[in-house]
């Protein structure tokens, strides 16, 4: 019972956060709404007994990525007067919502077609770090390594791009 | 162009103007020869011996610089040992009976004895006999206080009163250490230029009763201004200071040298004009009897001008060119009439042939140059037509009686922008108009043209605690195209082409621009 309640709370805050992300005018508020969404998602992972994902969501997304975004917005030090004029934003929002209605209707339909599953606590080891680690390094070793290579490439690319810009500035 | 000659000072060649004595000639190139009794306006007297200089291979070998004309090839010695000894000994002589009461002497800080002591003597007194006692606080009349002990008997004051004012109230009496300046019994200083002797006195022997003990000279800030007391436009130095927690007030006005206008002097009445700058000033802006911010009043006035069938602006003949032009431009834009009616500013038979003029307005020539009407008939006709009247600091009570003013503006909405209360008399007191407190001439910058057609700049250095607007600002607030001082100056240049070559009014030369040959002569 309380799991359902918790799920509803997390789901609602997640949706509210993502709405705020789009609707707020000031980027700092939007970024903080993103953080709220991230934390709510982490809560939903926790409800799914996915401890590692829960923690990684908190450490990486809520703690590092969003914090970095907030940090950069702070760096830009935007004030009300720096923000662009958006006179017709609500027209766009309403238009966007209207466009999305069929998609939402379709999604609700899909959701309803999924058979109901009873919420229950899964086995003790499920989602723990050991389990996930063993999975990663046995069944998923190749994708795991490929992804780490991809990240390395991104890293080098970022360094190269930053280096080029500095030279052109000099 | 004066002829230049070459001579040697301390073995170095310098080029100076010919036809001058050594003090003046060398001062132009920045070499100072100490002197007490010599003054450029009074000529050489040669009694103080402080200006003795050596002439190498000359006969005599030591001459007073004030009486020696500069000659080609002259070899002047200033730092030779014997000249230094002479200067040192003369200073020691002056100090024998001088009471070193600098702490209570008003001259301290601008005293030649102090300066020369630091530069040429700097030793302790060797005198062991008591100093000769003389009279301390002696009223010379005309606001001059004399301290006989401080006197160095240079005779500048005596010569001024004999040569310049030709009244000759003072004289040097006795000889030796009994020598002193005295007036003839029962005939103290009694002329309209008497306070100039205070400036002339190189030491603190003559001080002004008006300025006495008010401030120390080194606290005073100086602003180079033009006297607004009459149309002569004497160059003055406004000495003002803002003491802690108090308002910025002017303590005295001193003449500033300008050979073209006033020479070295000014009249006593002009010196006292500072009092009206300090006291009895308008402080508040009111609209219909209540204190309101300036912007409200200007907005109200602007809407009234737009609605009015005819508006009349009255400017002051003492206003600067910029202010006149700003009001004129406003009138052109709104279709209003401008008048500079100010017959009351002229005081018949008050002037003399030296500095004082009949016309007590500082910029009447400027009014004429800008062709602003100033006749009584024009003013009366316009006043009858107008239903909005704005007075820009013209003291109308000088020209018209209260009943006349009251009658003229019976049904007119009046905005009175003024520095002092009472410009429209008490007739306006009960009337629901508006009044604005203005900045006075010691607080704004500008250019005025004197009676001889010489345009002179003046700088207002006084910063009052109460922020008051300038006429240019008010005109701009009412919609004048001259939106600021720079724009007003550009308009002035358009109307008076002789001023067009100066980028800003600050670029006007210190001695002024003579417009006589151009527009003013017409």
């Amino acid at each position: 019972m309380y799991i359902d309640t918790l799920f509803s709370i997390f789901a609602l805050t997640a949706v509210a956060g993502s709405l705020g992300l789009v609707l707020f005018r000031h980027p700092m508020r939007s970024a903080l709404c993103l953080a709220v969404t991230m934390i709510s998602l982490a809560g939903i992972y926790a409800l799914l007994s996915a401890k590692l994902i829960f923690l990684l969501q908190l450490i990486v997304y809520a703690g590092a990525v969003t914090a970095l975004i907030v940090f950069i917005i702070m760096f830009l030090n935007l004030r009300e007067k720096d923000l662009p004029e958006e006179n017709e934003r609500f027209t766009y929002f309403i238009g966007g919502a209207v466009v999305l209605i069929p998609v939402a209707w379709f999604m609700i339909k899909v959701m309803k077609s999924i058979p109901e599953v009873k919420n229950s606590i899964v086995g003790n080891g499920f989602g723990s770090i050991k389990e996930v680690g063993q999975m990663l390094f046995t069944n998923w070793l190749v994708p795991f390594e490929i992804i780490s290579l991809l990240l390395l490439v991104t890293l080098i690319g970022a360094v190269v791009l930053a280096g080029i810009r500095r030279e052109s500035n000099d | 162009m004066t002829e230049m000659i070459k001579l040697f000072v301390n073995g170095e060649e310098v080029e100076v103007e010919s036809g001058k004595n050594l003090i003046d000639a060398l001062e132009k190139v920045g070499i100072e020869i100490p002197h007490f009794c010599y003054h450029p306006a009074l000529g050489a007297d040669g009694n103080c011996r402080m200006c003795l200089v050596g002439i190498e291979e000359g006969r005599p070998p030591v001459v007073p610089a004030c009486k020696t004309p500069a000659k080609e090839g002259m070899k002047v010695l200033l730092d030779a040992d014997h000249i230094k000894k002479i200067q040192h000994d003369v200073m020691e002589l002056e100090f024998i009976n001088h009471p070193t009461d600098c702490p209570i002497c008003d001259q301290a800080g601008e005293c030649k004895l102090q300066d020369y002591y630091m530069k040429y003597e700097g030793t302790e007194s060797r005198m062991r006999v008591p100093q000769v006692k003389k009279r301390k606080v002696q009223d010379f009349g005309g606001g001059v206080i004399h301290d006989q002990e401080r006197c160095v008997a240079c005779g500048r004051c005596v010569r001024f009163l004999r040569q310049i004012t030709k009244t000759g109230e003072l004289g040097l009496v006795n000889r030796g250490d009994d020598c002193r300046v005295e007036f003839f019994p029962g005939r103290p200083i009694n002329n309209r230029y008497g306070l100039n002797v205070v400036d002339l006195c190189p030491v603190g022997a003559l001080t002004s009763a008006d300025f006495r003990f008010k401030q120390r000279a080194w606290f005073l800030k100086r602003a180079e201004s033009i006297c607004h007391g009459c149309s002569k436009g004497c160059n003055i130095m406004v000495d003002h200071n803002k003491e802690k927690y108090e308002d910025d007030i002017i303590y005295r006005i001193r003449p500033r040298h300008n050979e073209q206008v006033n020479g070295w002097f000014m009249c006593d009445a002009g010196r006292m004009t500072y009092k009206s700058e300090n006291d009895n000033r308008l402080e508040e802006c009111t609209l219909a009897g209540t204190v309101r911010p300036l912007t409200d009043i200007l907005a109200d006035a602007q809407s009234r001008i737009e609605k009015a069938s005819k508006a009349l602006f009255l400017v002051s003949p003492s206003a600067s060119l910029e202010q006149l032009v700003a009001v004129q431009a406003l009138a052109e834009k709104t279709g209003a009439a401008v008048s500079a009616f100010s017959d009351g500013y002229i005081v018949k038979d008050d002037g003399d042939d030296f500095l004082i003029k009949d016309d007590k307005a500082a910029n009447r020539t400027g009014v004429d140059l800008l062709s602003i009407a100033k006749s009584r008939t024009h003013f009366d006709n316009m006043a009858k037509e107008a239903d909005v009247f704005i007075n820009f600091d013209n003291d109308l009570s000088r020209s018209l009686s209260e009943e006349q003013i009251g009658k003229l503006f019976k049904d007119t909405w009046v905005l009175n922008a003024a520095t002092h209360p009472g410009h429209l008399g008490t007739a306006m007191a009960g009337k629901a108009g508006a009044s604005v407190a203005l900045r006075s001439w010691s607080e704004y910058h500008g250019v005025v043209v004197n009676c001889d057609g010489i345009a002179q700049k003046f700088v207002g250095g006084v910063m009052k605690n109460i922020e008051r607007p300038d006429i240019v600002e008010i005109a701009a607030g009412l919609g004048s195209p001259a939106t600021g001082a720079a724009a007003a100056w550009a308009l002035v240049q358009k109307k008076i082409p002789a001023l067009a070559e100066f980028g800003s009014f600050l670029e006007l030369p210190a001695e002024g621009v003579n417009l006589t040959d151009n527009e003013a002569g017409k």
Partner: protein
Amino acid sequence: MAAKVKQLPSRGGTPAEKVYLIEIFKGMGITLRHFLRNLWDNSNLYVRHYPEVQPNIPAHWRGRHRLLTHSDGTPKCVACFMCQTNCPANCIMIKAGERTDGITEKMPVSFTIDLAECIYCGYCVEACPEDAIRMDTGIYAFTSSNREEMKIEMDEMLSLKGGYTEEEYQKGLEDE
């Protein structure tokens, strides 16, 4: 004359020092020694227990100002404004006027020192040509609950007495 410069040997070059941690531990050892000593027995602190133990004020201590008088009780001050001119805190406000008692011509009409702004540098005492102002009252503690009360007027300063004898004061000036 060259300025006195004490050359200290440059530190931090040896490998042991470059690791930092060793030096940090050395420094922490020093502070720990002080801490333990004082924790064991706190009677060795370099602290004056102020309100109970009053400091001994030497004669050249710059305390609250006073204005000196001649033997007949008239102020020595001649309102020369030297103190006001030299005051770096701009806390002295004098108004001068005519003096009628025949001693000199000029005296202060009002002489105010804003003690809230005074920095007790003593320049006014040094600048005074008449020895009319001194800071030898020995009063070092004065407080007020508003700024106005911190302004002291001429009468109050004239009525204050010096805290030391003339000999002590002169000796204090030499010590300074």
